[in-house]
C-alpha cells in the first residue's frame, strides 16, 4: 500500500490545468498561415499528396491536409504552420484557410443545434466508431481522456455502447466494409445525437479519398456537428473542439478537494463547503 502512495506521490501533478491555453511542445503543425508572396502555384498544388491546396488564390483545405508540412518546406515564404491547435469547427467551409487569413478558426454559432447545448452541455457521452481508422486518431481520442488531458473533468467521456451515448465520433475514411455497422451504431444512439469526424481521413477520406474500397454515403446523408482536423487530431484540438461545441470555451477546471496525500487543501480565502468543515477526509 505504501508503495502505491510512493508511486502516486512520484507522479506529481500530471494534468494540464488549462487546456484552452496550454502550449504544445516542439514544432507542432497546427493552423497554417498563407502569405501573399507570389510563387509557382501549379508546382505548389502538385506537391501536395492529398490535393489539399488550391490555386488562384492559394488556399489549404484542412479537411484534406495530412499536415505533412511538405508545402511549407518547398515554399517557406508562402506557407507557414503555426502551433495553433484550435482547428475544430462545425462548418466544412471554415476548414478552408485562404491567402492572407490569420485568424483563429471558430464555430459557426448559427449552425450549432440548440439541443446540443441545452441537453448535452454539461455532460457529453460519446461512442467511437472506427471505420477504416488507422488507430492513430483512436490513440489520440484515448489520450484525450488520460490523466494528462483529462477530458473527463468536463463531463466528456466515451461510453461502451451507443445506447448510452449522445453521439458518434467517427474516425477513418469509412470503409465499405464498415458502412453498415456505422449505420446500425448511429441508429442505436438515442436522440438528440451528434456526429463528430475526427481526423483528415474521416473528414475527406484523406490519402484514401479515391479508393474504391470506401463507402462514404453515410456522410452524404447526415449533418456533421463537429470537424476535428489533424492526422491524427491532437488531443488539445479534440478537447477544445468539444468545449466550443458545448459553448464552454472558458471552462473552469473543477478544483480538487483532495491533495495527493489525502488532506484537505488549505487555500487562503477559500471557504470549504460546510459539510466538509472540520472533517478529515
Amino acid at each position, binding site marked *: 500500500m505504501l508503495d*502505491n502512495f510512493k*508511486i*502516486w506521490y*512520484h*507522479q506529481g501533478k500530471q494534468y494540464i490545468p488549462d487546456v484552452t491555453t496550454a502550449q504544445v*511542445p*516542439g*514544432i*507542432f*503543425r497546427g493552423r497554417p498561415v498563407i502569405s501573399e508572396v507570389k*510563387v*509557382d502555384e501549379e*508546382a505548389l498544388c502538385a*506537391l501536395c*499528396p*492529398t490535393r489539399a491546396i488550391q490555386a488562384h488564390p492559394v488556399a489549404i483545405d484542412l479537411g484534406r491536409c*495530412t*499536415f*505533412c*508540412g*511538405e508545402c511549407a*518546406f*518547398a*515554399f*517557406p515564404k508562402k506557407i507557414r504552420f503555426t502551433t495553433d491547435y484550435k482547428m475544430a469547427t462545425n462548418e466544412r467551409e471554415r476548414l478552408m484557410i485562404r491567402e492572407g487569413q490569420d485568424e483563429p478558426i471558430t464555430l459557426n454559432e448559427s449552425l450549432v443545434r440548440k439541443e446540443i447545448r441545452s441537453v448535452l452541455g454539461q455532460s457529453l457521452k460519446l*461512442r*467511437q*466508431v*472506427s471505420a*477504416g*481508422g*488507422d*488507430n*492513430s*486518431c*483512436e*490513440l489520440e481520442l*484515448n489520450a484525450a481522456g*488520460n*490523466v*494528462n488531458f483529462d477530458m473527463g473533468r468536463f463531463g466528456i467521456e*466515451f461510453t461502451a*455502447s451507443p445506447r448510452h451515448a449522445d453521439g458518434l465520433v467517427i474516425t*477513418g*475514411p469509412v*470503409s*465499405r*466494409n*464498415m458502412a*453498415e*455497422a456505422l449505420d446500425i451504431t448511429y441508429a442505436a444512439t438515442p436522440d438528440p445525437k451528434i456526429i463528430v469526424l475526427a481526423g483528415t*481521413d474521416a473528414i475527406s477520406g484523406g*490519402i*484514401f479519398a*479515391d*479508393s*474504391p*474500397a*470506401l463507402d462514404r454515403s453515410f456522410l452524404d446523408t447526415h449533418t456533421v456537428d463537429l470537424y476535428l482536423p489533424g492526422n*491524427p487530431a491532437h488531443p488539445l484540438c479534440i478537447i477544445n473542439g468539444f468545449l466550443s461545441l458545448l459553448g464552454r470555451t472558458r471552462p473552469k477546471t473543477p478544483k480538487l478537494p483532495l491533495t495527493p496525500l489525502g488532506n484537505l487543501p488549505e487555500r487562503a480565502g477559500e471557504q470549504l463547503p460546510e459539510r466538509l468543515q472540520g472533517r478529515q477526509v
Partner: protein
Amino acid sequence: MMYVSVKNHQRIPFSDIPVTEYGAFRELILHELMANPDDHCVQYFGVPMDGGIRLIVCVARDSNSDIRISSCQASSENTYPSCAASKPALEKFEREITELYNIQFEGHPWNKPVRYPWNRAMQEQRMEQYPFYTIDSEELHEVGVGPVHAGIIEPGHFRFICNGEQILHMETQLGYQHRGIESLFLKPGSVLQKATLAENIAGDTAVGHTTCFAHLWESLCGFEPSAQLKYSRTLALELERIAIHTGGLSAMCADIGYQLGNSVFGRLRTPVINFFQQWCGNRVAKSLIRPFGTHFPFTPELGQTLSAMFDRYEPDFLEMCHELFKLPSALSRFEKTGVVSLEQAAEIGAVGVAARMSGLCRDIRASHPDDLYPELQHTPIVKHHGDVYSRTKVRKQEIEQSLAHIRQLLTRIPAPEDGLSASAPEVQAPGPYPHSGHAFLHQSPAPAPGMFVLSLVEGWRGEICHCAITDPQGALVCYKVKDPSFHNWLALALAVRNNEISDFPICNKSFDLSYCGHDL
C-alpha cells in the same frame, strides 16, 4: 536451382525468380524452403501475369539472413493441392490468393475469406455471410462480439463457442478496415503520396511501415541512405517501440482494473510521443520517415532533450513495473492465462512479440538486420510460458532494451547535414525548395524497370514485410504489404481456448494486434 536467394531489400531483376510448375513448387516449399525450424514464410502472394496468376513465395532463413524466393504459374481453372494442409503457417496466404484470384487449394483446412477486399474475385461473397464454425449442441452457446467494441478501438468480429463461461473455440472475422491500400500504391503518383500511404497503413506503426517502404523504394531506385538517415530510422523504430509498449502496459492494467498502473503507464507514454512531436511535429511520427532524406535530421540538441526525458521516464517506469509484477491480483490475471505453446507458435508462423513470448526467437533486428542494428548487436528478448504474463514481460523488457539501444545511439549522433539529400543539386530561388536540402523527394531517382524487392523491418509488433515488382517502364505492377498481425491473429484464437470468456479482453490486449494492418 529452383529458387533465388536474396538479402533483406536487395533488388533483383524479376526475371531472376525461377518459374516452376505447381507440383515442384509445392515440393520445394514443403521440403526445402521451409525445411528448417528457423525458416518462416514472410510473403506468399499472387500477381496477374501472362494470362494467369504468378504465385510468388518468399521464405526467410534466419540462420544465414537469406530470403529464398521461387514462383509458379497458376490459373483459376485448375485446383491445386494445398501447402497449408501440412504447413498451417501458410493458411492465410492461401486463403488470400483464393479470395483475390479464385485459385482453389484442395485440402486447405478452412479456406474462408480473409478480408473481403473491394477487388475480390467473388463479389457475391458478403461480410454478413461469413461462414463461421457452429456447433449443433444444446449445452453450448455462441457469443458474437463486434465489429464495434466497447472501447476506443478498431473494429473486428469475434465469435465464441462457449461451454458456460469457458471458451471452446473462437473465430475472428476481419476485413472491416479494408481501405484498398495495396491497389492505391499502384496508382501513378508522387513518392510523397506513397510514403503517406505507408504511414497510414497502421497509424500506431507509422515508423515501422514507412521505414519498410523507404528501404524498399530506395533499393528499387538504387539509392544508398546516408548515415544520418540510418541513424534516425533506427532511433525512431526504438522510440516507437517504447511508446506503444508503454501504452500497451497501460491498457493491460486497465483491462485488469488496476487504475494506478493504467494512469501511470498512460502518462509515461505522453513524454515519449511528445518527443516525436518535438522532433518532427507529429505525436505518432507521421512525416518523419521519408525515402532519400528527412526534413527532420536528428540533432545533438534533440539528443539532449531525449536523454533528459528518459532520465525522468526510467525511474518512474521501473518503479511502476516493480509494483505491477509483484502485485498478486495482477499476477493472478496474467499467469497461465491465454497460453500459446512453442509448438503452436512455430506451427502457425507467429512473429514478433507473439513468437518471442513462447520461446520462438524471431526478430528481424537480429536475423535480417539493417540500418544500425548490425552495430547494436541486438539480442532478442525471449520468454517461455506463452501466457499473458510472458507477453507483458517481453514488452516490459523490450522497453528497457530499447532504452539501452537509444542510450548507446545517443553517444554517436551523426552530423545533421548528412540526412538531407546528398545527391540533390542546389536549387535556386524563387522556385520550390529554396533550401536545397529539402528537395530530396522532388528530385528523387526513379525506380529501375523489371525489378523485384522485398523489405523486412521489425516493427514493435513484429516483422513487417513490403514487396514490390516494377514493369519494363519502372512503374509498380505489384505492391504487397504484410503487417505482423497477418500471422498473429491466429495466435490469439489459440490462446483463448479453454480460458474464461471474461479473460478475452486481457488476452486480446496482450497481443495488441492491428486490425487495419491486417485488413489494409
